[in-house]
């Protein structure tokens, strides 16, 4: 696009490449902050930082910032920088430009040991502060004797001291400051708490009943998936993705399939596209039902939880018949789907649609119209549109604040360009909007399924692939719309059967930083409900 070309012409020092709608801009570390600032505040504001990918190139370490612009969301800029210093790599921080960069930079620091200048919080994100080594470096030694299973909990002092580094008058200045002031009243939520939706550890500082500060602690389910992918073949990696965000596993798996198919320039049969889309939408309904039920349970309504799970079982039955699995459908494969649909599939799905519509009305009657529930949800937990974009809180959360970010509309994949559906948008950004938008999306998903289910074309259900899949050298990037936000896969391949580096953008990570922002000032009793309204899945954060 002309505007982007003009924008990128401002950086004579940068190495610019373009391929379709994606651009790659390589800058030296010294110019990074300046470039990022201009990209964020230029004529075309690249205000959505999708992800930061930490890279170990062998001789150098680097970072890739995937940027998108909310005005023209299908354009993606990959801003890259690298440093040769492997002993003490330093890269300027962009956390003052995009809020979401804060956690992403901590993640890169955790995995690769890169320190970000001027980032006020350079603790490790997932691993314990006393962990030795940086796992995503190629020379990392995974010997269990170096890092044995710990027998005691992490020291709270470690959790609270924030190291930072900056350069003043040409000299490195390292500082250590405390997260909480002396005498502050701190309550621990988790890591084992039934309502944190997984093993999330929140340290909450209170002033009476009012929340002053929330400090999330991750890593209690960090399984090192990104490191494991480096020694797994592409079909094997698919199984790990299912287990990351298990509620929208099928959708996330779709992203990996699409990325690999893009690399192989493979033609996927139309039948597979249709089936994939239907299965994805069924997964989305199941996920939203569970999210709805859990949020209601967080507010004390067990009945709603039982109702949500009851309807979800109908989808699980359909999955079980066609895919063979309940929760882990294991259905999408590279080139299509694992096997053909069950003869009863169409009939069962068609029976499910009117059933779900009827039940949606009941859900609204039971919970949405309930004055107690409305009283708890309305006017609480305001997230503005600008804040949502800056935090990168995509998906239903962003859409409830009025940010149009549906990847199914922005960059239609599979059969989404063939169907007619609305992107649900609300403008208030309150807890109630985040609640109701999920139920509205169930209705839209039903519409999509309705349009596709009778028109599944004949033909093969999967394209033939080679026994060993080798991805040609290069970088591949694929976005899909998961049930709780944008999920991205970044693959860097060296032409081998194993990828060189795989990075997943977790939609839930940004949702927790949104919780950090919206919880401040609200009552401690609402904290769990606010978390429920964001509907994050912790194993997806920790990977």
């Amino acid at each position: 696009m002309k505007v982007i070309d003009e924008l990128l012409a401002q950086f004579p020092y940068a190495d610019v490449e373009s391929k379709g709608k994606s651009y790659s801009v390589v800058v030296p570390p010294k110019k990074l902050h300046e470039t990022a600032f201009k990209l964020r505040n230029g004529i075309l504001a690249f205000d959505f930082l999708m992800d930061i990918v930490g890279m170990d190139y062998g001789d150098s370490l680097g970072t890739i910032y995937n940027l998108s612009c909310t005005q023209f969301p299908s354009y993606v800029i990959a801003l890259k920088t690298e440093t040769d210093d492997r002993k003490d790599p330093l890269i300027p921080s962009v956390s003052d430009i995009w809020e979401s960069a804060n956690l992403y930079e901590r993640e890169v620091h955790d995995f690769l040991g890169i320190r970000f200048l001027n980032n006020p919080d350079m603790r490790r994100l997932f691993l314990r502060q006393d962990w030795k080594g940086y796992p995503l470096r190629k020379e990392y030694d995974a010997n269990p004797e170096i890092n044995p299973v710990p027998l005691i909990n992490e020291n709270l002092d470690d959790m609270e001291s924030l190291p930072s580094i900056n350069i003043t008058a040409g000299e490195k200045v390292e500082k250590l400051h405390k997260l909480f002031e002396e005498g502050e009243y701190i309550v621990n939520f988790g890591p084992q708490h039934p309502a944190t939706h997984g093993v999330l550890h929140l340290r909450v500082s209170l002033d009476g009943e009012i929340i002053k500060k929330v400090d999330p602690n991750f890593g209690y389910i960090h399984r090192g998936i990104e490191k494991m992918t480096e020694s797994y073949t592409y079909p094997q990696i698919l199984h790990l993705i299912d287990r990351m965000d298990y509620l929208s596993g099928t959708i996330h798996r779709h992203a990996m399939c699409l990325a690999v198919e893009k690399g192989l320039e493979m033609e996927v049969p139309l039948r597979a596209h249709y089936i994939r889309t239907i299965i994805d939408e069924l997964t989305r309904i199941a996920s939203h039902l569970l999210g709805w039920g859990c949020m209601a349970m967080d507010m004390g309504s067990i009945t709603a939880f039982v109702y949500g799970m009851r309807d979800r079982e109908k989808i699980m039955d359909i999955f079980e018949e066609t895919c063979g699995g309940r929760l882990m459908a294991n259905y999408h494969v590279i080139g299509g789907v694992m096997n053909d649909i069950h003869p009863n599939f169409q009939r069962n799905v068609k029976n499910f649609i009117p059933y779900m519509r009827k039940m949606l009305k009941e859900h609204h009657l039971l919970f949405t119209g309930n004055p107690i529930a409305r009283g708890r949800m309305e006017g609480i937990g305001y997230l503005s549109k600008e804040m949502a974009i800056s935090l990168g809180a995509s998906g239903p959360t962003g859409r409830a604040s009025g940010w149009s970010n549906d990847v199914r509309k922005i960059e239609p994949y599979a059969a989404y360009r063939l169907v007619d559906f609305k992107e649900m948008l609300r403008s208030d950004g309150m807890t109630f909007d985040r609640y109701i938008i999920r139920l509205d999306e169930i209705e839209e998903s039903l519409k999509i399924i309705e349009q596709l289910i009778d028109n599944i074309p004949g033909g093969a259900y999967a394209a033939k692939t080679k026994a060993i899949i080798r991805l040609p050298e290069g970088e591949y990037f694929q976005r899909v719309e998961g049930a709780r936000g944008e999920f991205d896969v970044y693959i860097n391949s060296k032409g081998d059967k194993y990828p060189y580096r795989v990075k997943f953008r977790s939609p839930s990570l940004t949702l927790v930083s949104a919780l950090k922002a919206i919880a401040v000032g609200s009552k401690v009793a609402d904290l769990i409900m606010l978390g429920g309204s964001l509907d994050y899945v912790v194993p997806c954060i920790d990977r």
Partner: protein
Amino acid sequence: MEVKDIFIRDMKYEDFKENEYLEGYLKELRANGVNIAVAKLDDLINWGRSNSVWPLTFATSCCGIEFMCLGAARYDFARFGWEVTRNSPRQADVVFCCGTIVHKMAPVLKRLYDQMAEPKYVMAFGSCAIAGGPFNKSYHTVLGVNKIIPVDVYVPGCPPRPDAMIYGMMQLARKIKIQEFFRLPKQPDLSCHCGLDSQTVESNGETLEKGGLQ
């Protein structure tokens, strides 16, 4: 903690030591119209215990969703008296270990287990809890919960279906039924269980294999 060939015994006639006195007593009671049956107190207690086991709500990942399905309407473990999920380990009888346990979580799980009151049981759900599952090549995964705490029942699957979980619960119920409540086996000494050496701890006739932490 191996249990083989379990059969749940009826009360045998020879089990009474002072039969004559008891029989006379019973005869007298029955003659006066009292309906009476005689049984061992252990059986009664274990019958009660095995049918009201309170699990701790503990789930780390995917298996937790199947655990939720187990609690919801279709599978409904309330039918077996297991539905009182406790949020505090101090009130729970059994910890359902659903999901991968990683290095950072290991001391937390250990502490939860230590906080539970005796008699306590552990069930490992899913391949991650059994041996690390699909993540056993990772640098941050504990290869099975039995490296940290002793396990009573293993339920394989990734994740196990709720039906399989019910089957696992039934196995634990059988195990509880044959225990002698007044002489429960002492829990193994966990401080040495978590040590780096590998040996077998014997306690009250029950053996527990411990792998030691690598």
